[in-house]
């Protein structure tokens, strides 16, 4: 048996990805908005937190108010919500792939701006020594347990919040509008307002998770927010079950634990090519196999809400990416 600290770290990372996947599920699973801009929202929340808490003059940042992390944390969530609004307002007029590529483009724009605005963000240099909660009380290896506690608590809160949204009338309408354009048309403009609300909400939830991710990494740099992280969150959600309440939770734990366990495979350094290829190969294979034999993921939306919830069964047409379906004219 290996040292538990390693698995504590793995579970921490899994809990963080679980939070992100559950937040994504609200907008993409239920709202039908295919957001490929997770990395951008995560970057917004992360840099907001880092800049607000920065106080060290050695860092040479133009704006470093040195706020307490307990103030900066909620502000980061709110700021990310604002960013989501700025992206969503124009992007939500688009649907399907058009929405998807627009959110992806916005995420890349945010990352490039972080790189270019170096006097504010320290650009490609990044910011070290992230402030972490309770680190004056618990130090060293033991802090890993504190961090696991924070990440698990965050995931639990995320689960409760997203579950409430899922079973609320709001969530039901959201899903109905996603599945049935006639319903959406009948609801008219309310659907548009509902979608932007959902998009902002997902932004707030992702922004609230961002500091936890930084507690884990302990430093921030623009590379953290390359599109890869968006795809990892999506992969977790798809494996777990897009649209199901616990899909993101289960998928993230399966994916991250699987990935890290694969990393434990020992290969002689003379076969370094094989060593580096094992992980992407097996993660790819896992994704392919899950989709082949459980196309709805480990937990299906149907099992989460009962069979009668979706008006028609799954058809090829209705699982296509949709940004916003036809709503009112306007």
């Amino acid at each position, binding site marked *: 048996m290996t040292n538990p*600290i390693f698995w504590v770290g793995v579970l921490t990372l899994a809990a963080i990805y679980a939070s992100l996947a559950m937040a994504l599920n609200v907008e993409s699973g239920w709202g039908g908005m295919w957001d490929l801009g997770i990395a951008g929202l995560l970057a917004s929340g992360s840099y907001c937190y880092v800049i607000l808490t920065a106080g060290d003059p050695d860092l040479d940042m133009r704006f470093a108010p040195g706020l307490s992390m307990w103030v900066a944390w909620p502000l980061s969530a709110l700021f990310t919500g604002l960013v989501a609004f700025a992206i969503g307002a124009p992007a939500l007029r688009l649907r399907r792939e058009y929405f998807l590529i627009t959110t992806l483009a916005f995420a890349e724009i945010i990352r490039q701006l972080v790189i270019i605005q170096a006097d504010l963000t320290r650009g490609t240099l990044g910011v070290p020594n992230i402030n972490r909660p309770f680190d004056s009380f618990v130090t060293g290896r033991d802090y890993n347990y504190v961090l696991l506690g924070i990440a698990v608590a965050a995931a639990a809160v995320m689960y409760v919040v997203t579950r409430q949204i899922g079973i609320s009338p709001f969530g039901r309408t959201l899903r109905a509008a996603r599945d049935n354009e006639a319903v959406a048309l009948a609801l008219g403009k309310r659907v548009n307002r509902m979608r932007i609300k959902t998009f902002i909400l997902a932004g707030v939830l992702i922004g609230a998770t961002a500091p936890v991710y930084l507690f884990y990494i302990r430093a921030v740099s623009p590379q953290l927010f390359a599109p890869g992280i968006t795809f990892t969150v999506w992969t977790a959600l798809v494996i777990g079950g897009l649209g199901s309440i616990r899909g993101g939770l289960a998928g993230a734990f399966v994916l991250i634990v699987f990935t890290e366990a694969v990393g434990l495979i020992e290969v002689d350094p003379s076969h370094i090519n094989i060593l580096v290829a094992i992980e992407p190969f097996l993660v790819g294979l896992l994704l392919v196999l899950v989709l082949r034999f459980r196309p709805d993921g480990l937990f299906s939306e149907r099992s989460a809400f009962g069979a009668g919830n979706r008006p028609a069964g799954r058809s090829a047409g209705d699982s296509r990416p949709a940004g916003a379906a036809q709503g009112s004219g306007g």
Partner: protein
Amino acid sequence: MKRVLVALLAVGLVAAAACSGDSGDAADEGPVKYGFLNGQSGDYGPWGHWALAAAEVAVEELNAGGGVLGRSVELVVEDNGSTPEGAVSGFAELTEVDGIHALGGIESDGMIAIFDTVHELQIPTICSTCGTTELDSTGGDMVFRIIPSDTDNGIVGAQVARDEGYRNVAMLVELSEGTESPANVFKAVFTEQMGGTITEDVRFNAGETTYAAQVAQAFESGPDAVYIAAGFETGVPILNEWQRRGYTDVPMIFTTDLLSPEIAEIVSGVPGASAIVGATAYDTVNNPAWDAYVPRFEEKIGDPPEIAFYDAWQYDQYIILGLATAKAGTTDGAAVAAAIPEIANPPGVEVFSYAQGLAELEAGNDIDYHGTTSNLNLNSVGNLLSPVMAVIHVQDGDWAVRENIELDPTLVKPS
């Protein structure tokens, strides 16, 4: 919902309960384990092959010299995928699962991410490829850097520009930490301390389809010389452009990454090739450590060592760790870290290999290890004290040292 919450709680509790054994501190028997955490895939992947080969040459030397503390040495290789997240989880695996005693191989961004954890876990760490200016003023307890800082590289670039008599310089800079850092220092020193002019400062991203427009912008701005800070992969298309568009009469100053064989090949046949220089800490002339290293590396990989691939630094770090562990007489992290400056700095008998150093240590003498790339004398924050800088140019189709210079002490790091 309750079930899920309970499950979540259980995960935390089980993990907490499992915390009986206190750490991954390796036992006092079995091999001495040195971690090699490095981007074997991802953006640093092209360097990975060379880095690993050099590390293996070093560990083979340690084992050929009877091992460390009479135990064999094992190199534990972990790929960080060239990302900070990969560095964090890879470091956790090396320390908690493999139980390494010391670490090498890591790059700047990964080093910054694991810096605090390295100190908490007391894992002596040598950074053989981090130029980051972030380490200019921190380190020296647990983290040591045996490569020149990007600050030094930027200053020496400006010094070369001054000495060659360039007044107007255009810059072509790839947007990454390792290329922007020296470029920014270069720009500040060249303009503020030498009164030089930057005719154009072109920044670009790696992975572009073509670089023709950026190259034209820099070279068409009428510079005396062009300063290029880029990785060798982007360097190749840039220099193909340079050659094809007929800019070959404009001299160039390169950062370390560009001193690769592919680039030497491109520029060597061109009339203006003699006016292309790079400069870095690379003290290989009349250096027994270097002379002994070159054939072994070549045997391992089939190619000679290359400056741009940083392999020699990867080699040096494990010889240092071996000697420091031997000096400390234990694998205890704090003791080994404390021994690193002792074996690297004077006073002591100058030694150039592990076997030589070990013999002197066993004879009860202090040692001053000189590596393949520098005398490895370290200052109080674990940086190279006063590296000998080599001006490097193309000769017979490959890079060669033209002359050694000292950093002009009147040039200072810009604030």
